[in-house]
């Protein structure tokens, strides 16, 4: 376990020493600030605009960070051969994957906390006090983090067998598909026979990011049911576990040429 945490903390260290990360966070915070301006233009819905735009910025920039760090997690180490000196130590291959995953998730959580502070500051600036509905924002942010966990797991999965560029394409494509997961099920349920079954299976296996997106309802100050929080948490964690297990499975059999 100490090996896994060592690898995780090194991954975290790698991320925080990367200048790109700060640029992205700064940009996201800038967007939150800009949302205040946009909110002022569109009368009466400042709060709605700030929350919508702010949460969208957090989720998109976090996504970019997750994908761009995630895809390099394994393939870069193979390419630069830094793995050789890791795997010639008493580190099992699955431990390496787990450590990398943990490190990136930790990075993303810390990022999200930073960006969340920005959003809360903007919301506070508007109302000069916090209100009960602000707590729903926390749920939305929590769901966004769950999305990051899932996309990280998927990026890791792709990274374990394909090149960074291809992994990025795969991960991004899955994100887009996952955003329309609900519609995909709609399509699937319109097909019949064997193809219908395959389509339905595919529609359920694809990551469902739509289920984890409550931004617009939170922007309308609507609460999120506790049971939904529970099931979504279960879903995201189980799905990520499956993807990470897949990454480990592939990586265990890889020849590091």
């Amino acid at each position, binding site marked *: 376990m*100490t*090996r896994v945490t*060592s*690898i995780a903390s*090194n991954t975290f*260290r*790698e991320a925080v*020493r*990367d200048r790109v990360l700060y640029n992205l966070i700064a940009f996201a915070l800038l967007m939150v600030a800009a949302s205040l301006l946009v909110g002022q233009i569109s009368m009466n819905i400042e709060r709605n605009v700030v929350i919508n735009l702010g949460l969208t910025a957090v989720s998109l920039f976090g996504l970019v960070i997750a994908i761009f760090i995630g895809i390099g997690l394994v393939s870069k180490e193979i390419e*630069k*051969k*830094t*793995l*050789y*000196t*890791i*795997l*010639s*130590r*008493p*580190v*099992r291959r699955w431990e390496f994957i787990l450590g990398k995953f943990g490190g990136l998730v930790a990075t993303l959580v810390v990022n999200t906390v930073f960006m969340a502070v920005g959003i809360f500051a903007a919301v506070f600036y508007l109302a000069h006090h916090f209100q009960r509905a602000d707590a729903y924002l926390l749920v939305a942010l929590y769901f966004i983090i769950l999305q990051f966990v899932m996309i990280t797991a998927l990026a890791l999965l792709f990274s374990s067998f394909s090149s960074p560029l291809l992994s990025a394409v795969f991960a991004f494509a899955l994100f887009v598909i996952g955003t329309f997961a609900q519609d995909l099920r709609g399509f699937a349920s319109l097909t019949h026979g064997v193809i219908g079954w395959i389509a339905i299976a595919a529609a359920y296996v694809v990551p469902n990011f739509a289920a984890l997106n409550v931004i617009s309802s939170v922007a309308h100050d609507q609460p999120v049911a506790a049971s939904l929080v529970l099931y979504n948490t279960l879903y995201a964690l189980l799905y990520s576990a499956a993807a990470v297990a897949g990454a480990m499975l592939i990586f265990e*059999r890889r*020849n*590091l*040429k």
Partner: protein
Amino acid sequence: MPTFVAMPAIETFGLEKTYTVGFWRKRPRCALRPLNLAVEEGEVFGYLGPNGAGKTTTLKLLMGLMFPTAGSAKILGREVNDPQVKAQIGFLPEQPYFYDYLTARELLEYYAQLSGVEARARSRRVAAVLERVGLRDVAGVQLRKFSKGMLQRVGIAQAILHDPKVVFLDEPMSGLDPIGRREVRDLIESLKQEGKTVFFSTHILSDAEALCDRVAVLHQGELRGIGVIADLTSSVRGKVEVIWQGGVIPPAMHALSAECHLIGAMARAVVGENQLDAAVDALRRANLKLVSVTPVRASLEDYFVEKLSPAEVAAR
């Protein structure tokens, strides 16, 4: 009484690796033919071969980085992927590259954690090993500012960091200046003094000659010879270099040696050991003054040339 046989530190059993190359039309490329090798504990073992011989391939297989096409290997009597084995080996890859956002000290601390070095001993061990490879003064510098030679030293440092029993070095001298090579040689010597097993690959013969107890010679994935250096070289016939004064080469000398020429007022010829008497006689008869007679020690180079078929040498 049972008899105890020294356990080999490294052993391979018909180890074989075939790469597949080509994207559309996959073709097999045999990089290592069945390799049977045993390296005893405490030995400094040289793994020799020209470029592309399969040295790195062998090392990657031994490190468990790749899976063999056939055969198997053991280190310290255990499966190579056994974590207990991994804790007792050190590995320097060829042309090593490390996380360049870390300082030398951070990198070694990290590796020490992964190798299971106790937390208490860690920083002391790291400091000691940095001292040993001569990087003490740059311990706090990020690796992206390191030169190639300095990186090679970091590589050696991480290989010996956790006091491993067996050290694998893939071309440890490459990228180093003459002083650096000297230092690495001394380091390998001292590892030997400490009773460690050192397995290192190189295509530079003089390094191997100076250090190794035994060497193996690999060519095109095939083991061409293995043994003590003296044995290997003695299988190559000895020669003698004869130098004399007076700028003439007696005709009899031409008959004895294919390799004779004038050097200013002197002349030089290389003859076979068994023809030394005839050569000296020839000089005496021509009234030329003998200056020196030195045996030309057969080198691994000769061994290479002799062992690799002429066609192979010409093709290189």
